């Protein structure tokens, strides 16, 4: 391998990891909801879109940097998510129906309503990142003059990635160390046992949906500096979250993190070495391969190793 090939490889790997870190954050929210509620939240991408609009307007009107508005938008999204669960999903859960997947269909409807409301309020205009540092980057050759290869590290991508990691670690602590976190995990593992142990399952559902919405809301803020927004953007991110959820193992947070990273690196590598037009194909190949060869996702691998020890 000559210097140029190495440069291309490393730059691709960097891009893939950064992208994967952000994908993971989108995926975790869906996975959490999946684990506890046993439904796929197909309005996930639309929730992210709502959060992005919030972050965008916070910046335009009050000059609050998207990275700071994470702390405003995520809590708002938490309550928004709880409200959706409380007033829309819960009533449907209680209704006996022909279709057992009523709630999933409901989330599709919620997604459509959100997207159309956004079109109504904000028009269908594309809005670009308002921040100034959008295309700033650090360059290897600025620090190491005679470097044989040139690598660049985008400022907003790196910051977004770092915050995403911090949020993920915080979530992990929350789920493993706090009572509420443990109750959520208990509900996800065995609903009836959790009920018998005195876990307030109803409340856990509320908290989980709120948490899922808050996580994807945070992801939305992190995407503002590097991407753009328009009302119909939700669908593609719902899809990505869905693939990650399947790949990671339904309901597993660690699985979702690894799944997100795998997807990010895989997409970047496909783009460089196969062709960027193949990225969507690659995404579904992974999806199908995971379903066939690894039905439990990455989580099942982790679990079997732990049992082996």
């Amino acid at each position: 391998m000559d210097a140029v090939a190495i440069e291309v490889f490393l730059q691709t790997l960097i891009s893939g990891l950064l992208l994967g870190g952000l994908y993971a954050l989108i995926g975790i929210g869906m996975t959490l909801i999946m684990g506890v509620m046993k439904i796929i939240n197909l309005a996930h991408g639309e929730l992210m879109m709502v959060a992005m609009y919030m972050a965008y307007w916070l910046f335009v009107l009050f000059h609050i940097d998207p990275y700071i508005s994470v702390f405003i938008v995520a809590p708002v999204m938490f309550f928004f998510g709880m409200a959706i669960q409380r007033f829309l999903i819960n009533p449907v859960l209680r209704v006996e129906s022909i279709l057992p997947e009523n709630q999933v269909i409901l989330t599709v409807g919620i997604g459509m309503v959100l997207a159309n409301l956004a079109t109504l309020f904000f028009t269908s205009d594309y809005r670009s990142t308002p921040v100034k540092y959008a295309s700033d980057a650090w360059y290897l050759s600025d620090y190491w003059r005679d470097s044989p290869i040139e690598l660049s590290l985008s400022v907003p991508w790196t910051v977004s990635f770092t915050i995403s990691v911090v949020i993920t670690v915080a979530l992990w602590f929350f789920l493993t160390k706090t009572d509420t976190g443990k109750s959520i995990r208990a509900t996800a593992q065995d609903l009836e046992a959790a009920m018998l142990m005195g876990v307030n399952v109803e409340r856990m559902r509320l908290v989980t949906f709120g948490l899922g919405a808050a996580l994807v809301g945070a992801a939305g803020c992190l995407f503002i500096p590097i991407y753009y927004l328009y009302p119909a953007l939700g669908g593609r991110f719902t899809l990505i979250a869905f693939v990650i959820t399947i790949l990671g193992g339904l309901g597993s947070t660690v699985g979702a993190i690894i799944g997100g990273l795998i997807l990010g690196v895989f997409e970047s590598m496909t783009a460089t070495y196969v062709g960027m037009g193949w990225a969507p194909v690659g995404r579904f190949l992974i999806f199908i391969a995971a379903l066939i060869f690894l039905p439990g996702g990455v989580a099942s691998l982790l679990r079997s190793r732990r049992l082996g020890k």
Partner: protein
Amino acid sequence: MKRLVLLMVIVFLSSLLITTVATAGDTVTFTIPLPLTGSKAKFGEIEKRSYEIALEEINAAGGIKGKKVKLVFEDSQGKPEISRAIAEKIIDVKKQPVIFGEYSSSCSKAIAAVAEERKVPYLVVTGAADNITQQNYRYVFRMNPSVSYYTSGLRSFLKEVVKPRTIAIIHESTDFGTKGAEGMVKDAKRIGMKVVLKEKYESGAVDFKPILSKVKSKRPDVIYMVSYVMDAALLMRQIKELRIDAKLFAGGAAGFAIPEFIENAKDASEYVVTATLWSPMVAYPGAKDFAEKYKSRHGKYPSYHGAEAYSALYVIKDALERAKSWSSEDIRKALKETNIVTAFGPIKFEDREGYQNQNFMDTLVLQVIDGKHETIWPLKYATRKYVYPIPRWRDRR
């Protein structure tokens, strides 16, 4: 599931609309399919507003042959199957003798097939894929140049000023993008450039850096991109980020030629050249008036799509006024003989170079200079002298 819902919506809407009649008394109603929701809604909106401006002007001047004109817009969501359904309704239910509109190539193609089958003339307004007018259709007319001709001006700029030896082509994986890239491959052969890389991508992608680092490793003289606006801005931002120093960054109309490109890519857009069909400052009669009128109402200048839509109604008006009767056959004959200059440029439908009923016209080259699109080519229309060679990223600012 999604499709089922759509179908139900269509059925519901069409049941509502059956009761309206196309021509009643002294008004004439045209139904125009446009993407008013979905990811292409932005362009649908520009076109709708432009049609409305033309409509007001025409009605204020007495309508078409004394009849007041009315326009009805139907949302195709940018999906060919929905456009097709709308077209069938316009022809079969509303009995409209001529049909025009729609934005994307794939939707225009769907309508073209219906129109040809039912022998109703269809005026393509913005769909640019080459093969729409290459299928020996007798009833399909196109007023905008096909995508291979979007770049005729850019081609001569490259040949006479830049004289590049290698080119890398990045395009979105849609009909429009693929055809645009193929056109550039042919152009490259014509002016002796080697295509070192040709890659497609999925529109809406988040990260272009993998593909761009591959482009960087090939060191092309020119990087040519066919993209819609947000992809275009993201591409240029990430090119800046990776400091890819090509001699020239060129865009194939669409996303690169509209003001939003500069707003979104900010300083990364400086010195990017783009082929375009139209600019608000161009010297065609009525172009500036239309652009100013649009700006005063909607706050910003329209893109060339707007000018195409605005002029389309005038082309229809012209044809209807010359037609012997308002039967589809007579309107087709009248369209065939069209020879007018609109705000969008001269319109004349010709059969040549494998095309039928295609309008051929000169295209312009714009360059972003000091954060503004300036016409730089052909020199006789230039508003400013082009900047070439362009500075390297490292030396900027």
